[in-house]
């Protein structure tokens, strides 16, 4: 390792001011700090610092995403062979899934990081670690049938319009990964809805609709039709919980997502306040619908089933908790989370056009997060003013 350090030290001047490749300084530093935690010491303020940095933080989040990714790989293969009516060995299933998913991940990282590096270079900034997570989130919320060039365009849109125009990591108002998905959804709707895209190379005869799509069809169904839709497609909640259902790559398995949630909460990186309140919000709206019971959707789907269908759990654990686009105050986080869950279920049930409403609910609340924070901050300010009045 010393040889590597020596090599870097030797090449470093080339990339610094006045060096031959001074323009590539950000890129050089990105690689250097990836290999080595820099030797910078504190010059003012506290002399010691917590060992955590953004690289560590982001790698913990990526680690938390691994269970969902691994399950996504398995499920992609599983759904494929299931639709063909074939039985396959575990290894074959995994290899098939890997071949389908790896290119999407590669495209997401190459395009996203490429743009990030270019912007850092242009602005003379350091390359920020934020995309390490976004680059993993984007493939996990794509349908497996997504054409690679569309993934590339969506990613590029997300990084440029979702993030860099605001000033880069830390400055964006929406979750970049969701911006990618929203762009994809509205630009290429045929590749993000229907029942073809969720299973790789599926047999035509096999229905590839997601549970949410089945659930949406309940709205207009009555009587026995409704009951039969439910018993045929929606009653197998165990599979929905485990994740052996069609859906976006990483979102299907509630178990895998919960493992990620445990990692995020235990390490202190993810906000349990947001996660918990999203689930509570979703359950509350689901329960209200159960009480109202105006159509078969409201009547037949129990409130808790909303939490394991579609992208609800994935959104709650990995998307809503993005610290940059979420509310920033402790109380704000609870309100923000609750409204995400609440709105997600509301949109799902009330608007059949958007069966997967989690994305929209989170983006909407991202937009309102500063407003929520504003009122929480005003609350603090008012308490302070009140104190003066009591004393006076």
């Amino acid at each position, binding site marked *: *390792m010393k040889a*590597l*350090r020596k090599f870097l030290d030797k090449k470093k001047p080339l990339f610094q001011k006045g060096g031959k490749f001074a323009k590539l300084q950000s890129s050089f530093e990105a690689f250097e*700090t990836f*290999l*080595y*935690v*820099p*030797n*910078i*010491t*504190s010059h*003012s*303020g*506290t*002399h*010691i*610092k*917590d*060992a*955590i*940095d*953004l*690289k*560590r*933080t982001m*790698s*913990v989040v990526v680690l938390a995403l691994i269970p969902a990714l691994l399950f996504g790989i398995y499920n992609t293969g599983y759904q494929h062979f299931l639709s063909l009516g074939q039985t396959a060995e575990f290894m074959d299933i995994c290899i098939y899934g890997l071949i389908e998913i790896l290119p999407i991940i590669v495209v997401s990282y190459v395009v996203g990081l490429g743009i990030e590096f270019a912007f850092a270079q242009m602005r003379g900034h*350091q390359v*920020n*670690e*934020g995309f390490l997570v976004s680059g993993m989130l984007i493939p996990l919320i794509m349908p497996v049938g997504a054409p690679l060039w569309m993934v590339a365009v969506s990613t590029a849109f997300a990084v440029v319009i979702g993030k860099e125009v605001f*000033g*880069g*990591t*830390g*400055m964006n108002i929406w979750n970049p990964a969701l911006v990618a998905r929203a762009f994809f959804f509205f630009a290429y709707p045929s590749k993000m809805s229907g029942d073809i895209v969720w299973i790789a190379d599926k047999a035509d005869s096999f229905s590839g609709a997601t549970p949410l799509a089945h659930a949406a069809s309940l709205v207009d169904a009555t009587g026995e039709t409704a009951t039969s839709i439910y018993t045929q497609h929606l009653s197998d909640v165990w599979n929905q919980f485990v994740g052996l259902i069609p859906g976006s790559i990483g979102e299907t398995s509630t178990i895998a997502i919960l493992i990620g949630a445990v990692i995020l909460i*235990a*390490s*202190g*990186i993810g*906000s349990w306040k947001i996660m918990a309140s999203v689930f509570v919000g979703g359950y509350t709206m689901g329960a209200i619908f159960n009480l109202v019971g105006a159509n078969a959707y409201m009547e037949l789907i129990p409130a808790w089933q909303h939490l394991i269908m579609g992208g609800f759990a994935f959104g709650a654990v990995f998307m809503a908790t993005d*610290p*940059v686009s*979420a509310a*920033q*105050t*402790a109380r704000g*986080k609870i309100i923000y989370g609750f409204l995400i869950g609440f709105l997600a279920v509301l949109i799902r049930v009330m608007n059949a056009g958007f069966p997967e409403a989690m994305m929209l609910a989170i983006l909407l609340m991202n937009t309102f997060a500063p407003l929520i*924070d504003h009122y929480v*901050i005003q609350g*603090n*300010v008012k*308490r*302070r*003013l009140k*104190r*003066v009045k009591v*004393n006076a």
Partner: protein
Amino acid sequence: MSEVKKIKKGLDIKLIGKAEKVLEKADRSETFAIKPTDFPGLTPKLKVKVDTEVKAGSALFFDKYRPEINFTSPVSGKVVAVNRGERRKILEVIIQSDNELQYEEFKKANPTDLSRDEVKEELLKSGLWAFLRQRPYDVIANPADAPKAIYISAFDSAPLAADFDYLVEGEAEAFQMGLDALTKLTDGKVHLNIDAQKTQSKVFTEAKNVVINKFAGVHPAGNVGVQIHKLDPINKGDVVWVIRPQEILFIGRLFQNGTYDVSRKVALTGSEVKNPAYYSTILGGSVRNILKAQLKDDDKIRVISGNVLTGTQIPEDGFLGFYDSQITVIPEGDEYEFLGWALPGLKKFSMSKTFFSWLTPNKEYRLDANLHGEHRAFVMTGEYDKVLPMDVLPLQLIKSIMVEDIDQMEQLGIYEVAPEDLALCEFVCTSKINVQDLVRQGIDLMVKEMS
């Protein structure tokens, strides 16, 4: 006695090298320095020149805008240097001790018999006034104010902090006399805040004419700012004063003996010290003799006057800061670490549980001054809230300071905080933001705008 106030939010950082309660001997320091940089916001005006003979208690310089506040020599001897920095800013006034300790004579009196103005005058003349600091702003108190109350924290919860019980040992009389002098300065109460469990010394627990409040919990429980916030938060327009126990001893000695006797104990601490222990020295003394035989390694160390969170880096032959009762020596840590962000990190300390060191919660660490990462924009939220036991929104306050929004700063509680209260926020910050510098900048801006 009053109920115990519990401080739950915060963080105890366990470091190697806590000072043992023994008073070690070191050769007496020959040079002493008073550093105007220890006093935020001060514009000093010199009263002495190089070669001026001084006694302990002779004024060296004074505050240009409040000329009654003197800063005096801790020992007798000769001024040998006035070191200046950029734009001729005075950094240090250095005195060569004559080893005799001749004192300027001040009035010897029982402060209870004196009027407020007489007590004030004695403190101003002797140079002890500089130990009285005010909140808001964490600057030297304004003699023209009548503070709402005076607060004293009788314990320090910072990493490796000196044990105040030990610092005041055997000086109950001087301490009480100092307290009596303080009670003269305010119409309100003098609050002595002790640690519910750790404070044992009768000097504190049996102090008279004061209100004793009990605190318990993690750092920053010992920060006087946090204590004030729990007892009676500072509102706009309020002024309270704070002072530390050892400095009350100085005041007591002034009235007892009529001398400016600023001899004090300091704790030599830190992982790079062979035998962490207490030393007897005089305010402003050079640390060279204390450190001489005690450093494990001369190379790559950092000597800090004060604690690792709020102290000032000084050279190995530097001088003890005005308010500091602790010297900490830690490794510099200016080294690269291969894939350091990815390793399990059993030897790294973090509030988060992203390093496996959380499996050993009672371990003491050898931490260095490495930043462990680069400066970044704000990304994480909620980190600061975990270590600030106040009803203040730290992240929002810092952001209002960054954009210099005076109204917002005031509304979010700039009057209630001192840089040291947010030191832990700076420690835990993932983005390595210089929180304490920012708080000081915000305070400076407020001072400028409000005057």
